[in-house]
């Protein structure tokens, strides 16, 4: 199994020597790959980066097709409409730039203002690339930030003086992070952290820079490619979702069945206890941002549960979505966990201090990630962190509450089965909706929902954040979002509608809704608002479009159900609909209170 060399902390000599054989092995693994077109635009050499990235992506289930810019042509390829890149139609563009691409670095004769001008020019250069990419390709962008340079000729002053390159790099990185906060579909590959983590002495190698124009050492390339592959896997929904944890000598020190709950090592009393609490804390951090936790332990269930009643336990039993404490082989339990949570077995990561257990799980279930964490508890969380299994691409409020949404759904389903009449069920939900015009605070979420909704989506048009901003400010458009709350909780922002006004008609370009709130009459509630906004603008007609895709069959009759008239139907199943607005229009929504 050569591909094992791709598990953190990587067998780098083997990766470098046998990359061709490893690629063959991965391709022959029988995995179901998704194919993605990835353009690598480099400010320095990228061949080895491409080769390593390919291995890590194949391991994550992505079969990449690559485009590589000519050496240091990352700017030209985008700005001057590179023909080849246009033809390639990338799904994702990776901009591999680094401190060597800072063309105008600050000099000692520069005033603070001069340095500021240089900083702004660098910022402009990159924002022009990003804007152009989003305009021409509307694709995902992954951009390196800047690592710290090889030299600091000003010594420690390089950090604090405006003429210092270290100072300059820190400033441009802040600008990049601000951009990442505002731009949708844009992700930073944090090489600054990565270089610090493996150490600048190991990261930089001027030998390969002078000989082959690589801006980082050969041994750093696998780390870079791995970090990048984690982002790409996360973008395409292939990040891991669930962490399965062993108990004895993993989440706490000692064997609870033998030692008793009062004697297990957890908490600040001992160094060992503190280390186990540290791991629990890390697992809790993961859980709080949406990673599912599960227990898989060889124990009596009763003893296992008791461990979480220890006063110093950070985790409680409610933090785990699945809890398996029995004497069955672990691979059987893990299969069961995946089934219970209803996720693929390849989205699990298994953490156990016992190498024998790790071995049986990884041999019986090769799809499960089983990091070789050694047997020192103080290192377990670091291994987990550095392997980057659970890479998140954003943290929206809705992501943080996802677990709660699902909990709420279970309760709603329970309730639904108690009612004979569906209307009665809807009334009992005590739904309250907020339906308003797009507002800046929601534009991120509106864009995210627009770009990921496939089923309840009439036109499946995708918008980058800047286009959404423009749309929200267009006086010739009607834009609406809807949030829905019910007695089980807040569903968040779940529907988006946008239309443009032509003559006396509203043309609906965008109408989509999260499947989380299907069959709740939310579409009626928002349609009432579309009509009322149209009446206010003196419009007479609403025109709706259904563009058929392989996934949106559920809304083919959407406009019919709202009382629209069919105007035209294409051979491919797409259709156009009209609705004449009656000034005495009566609201269709009966069950949702609109706040």
């Amino acid at each position, binding site marked *: 199994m050569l591909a094992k060399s791709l598990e953190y902390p990587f067998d780098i*000599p083997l990766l470098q*020597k046998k990359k061709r054989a490893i690629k*063959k092995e991965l391709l022959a693994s029988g995995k179901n790959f998704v194919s993605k077109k990835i353009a690598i635009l480099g400010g320095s050499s990228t*061949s*080895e980066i491409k080769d390593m990235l390919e291995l890590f992506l194949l391991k994550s289930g992505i079969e990449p097709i690559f485009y590589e810019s000519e050496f240091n042509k990352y700017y030209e390829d985008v700005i001057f409409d590179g023909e080849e890149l246009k033809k390639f139609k990338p799904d994702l563009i990776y901009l591999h730039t680094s401190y060597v691409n800072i063309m105008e670095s600050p000099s000692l004769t520069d005033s603070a203002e001069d340095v500021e001008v240089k900083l702004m020019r660098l910022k402009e250069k990159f924002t022009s690339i990003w804007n152009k990419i989003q305009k021409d390709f509307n694709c995902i962008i992954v951009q390196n930030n800047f690592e710290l340079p090889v030299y600091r000729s000003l010594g420690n002053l390089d950090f604090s003086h405006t003429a210092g390159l270290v100072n300059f790099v820190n400033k441009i990185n802040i600008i990049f992070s601000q951009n990442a906060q505002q731009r949708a579909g844009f992700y930073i590959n944090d090489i600054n952290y990565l270089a610090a983590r493996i150490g600048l002495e190991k990261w930089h190698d001027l030998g*390969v820079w*002078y*000989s*082959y124009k690589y801006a980082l050492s050969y041994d750093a390339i696998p780390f870079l490619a791995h970090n990048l592959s984690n982002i790409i896997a996360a973008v395409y929904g292939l990040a891991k979702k669930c962490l399965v944890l062993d108990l004895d000598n993993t989440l706490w020190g000692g064997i609870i069945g033998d030692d008793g709950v009062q004697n297990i090592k957890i908490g600040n009393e001992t160094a060992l206890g503190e280390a186990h609490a540290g791991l629990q804390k890390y697992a809790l951090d993961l859980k709080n941002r949406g990673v599912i936790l599960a227990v898989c332990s060889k124990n009596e269930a009763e003893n296992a549960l008791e461990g979480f009643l220890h006063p110093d336990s950070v985790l409680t039993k409610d933090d785990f979505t699945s809890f398996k404490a029995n004497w069955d082989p672990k691979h059987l339990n893990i299969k069961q966990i995946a089934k219970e949570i209803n996720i693929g077995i390849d989205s699990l990561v298994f953490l156990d201090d016992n190498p024998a257990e790790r071995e049986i799980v990884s041999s019986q279930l090769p799809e499960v990630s089983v990091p070789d964490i050694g047997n020192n508890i103080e290192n377990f969380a670091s291994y987990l962190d550095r392997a980057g299994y659970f890479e998140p691409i954003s943290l929206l409020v809705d992501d943080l509450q996802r677990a709660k949404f699902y909990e709420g759904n279970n309760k709603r389903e329970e309730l639904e089965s108690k009612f004979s009449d569906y209307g009665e069920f809807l009334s009992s939900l005590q739904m309250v909706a907020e339906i308003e015009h797009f507002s800046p605070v929601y534009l991120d979420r509106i864009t995210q929902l627009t770009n990921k909704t496939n089923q309840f989506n009439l036109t499946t048009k995708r918008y980058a954040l800047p286009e959404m901003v423009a749309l929200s400010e267009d006086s010739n458009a009607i834009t609406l979002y809807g949030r829905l709350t019910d007695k089980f909780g807040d569903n968040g922002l779940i529907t988006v509608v946008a239309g443009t006004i032509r003559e006396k008609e509203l043309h609906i370009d965008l109408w989509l809704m999260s499947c989380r709130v299907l069959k709740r009459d939310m579409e009626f509630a928002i349609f009432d608002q579309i009509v009322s906004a149209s009446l206010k603008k003196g419009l007479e007609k609403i025109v709706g479009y259904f563009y058929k895709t392989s996934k949106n069959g559920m809304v083919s009759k959407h406009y019919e159900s709202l009382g629209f008239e069919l105007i035209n139907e294409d051979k491919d199943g797409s259709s156009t609909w009209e609705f004449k607005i009656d000034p005495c229009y009566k609201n269709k929504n009966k069950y949702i209170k609109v706040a």
Partner: protein
Amino acid sequence: MNKDNILEAMQQIFRDVFDDEGLVIDNETSAEDIEDWDSLAQINLVISMEKEFKVKFSLLELANLHNVGDMADLIGQKLQQ
């Protein structure tokens, strides 16, 4: 380690890097003899040899290499130091 041993170990590295178990090299083998031996493969060969023999080549040393024999001699010298 004599030159024959070095050449033998080098041959295995060549076979790994080019993923060709039938590959045979000798003192005269150079980039012109192996189709896939481009600049990218060149770095992989150099890096793998540095790791295998636990030596480090300088820019100057690398600039003076013309074929496999030169490389084997250089490794031999370094191992004796």
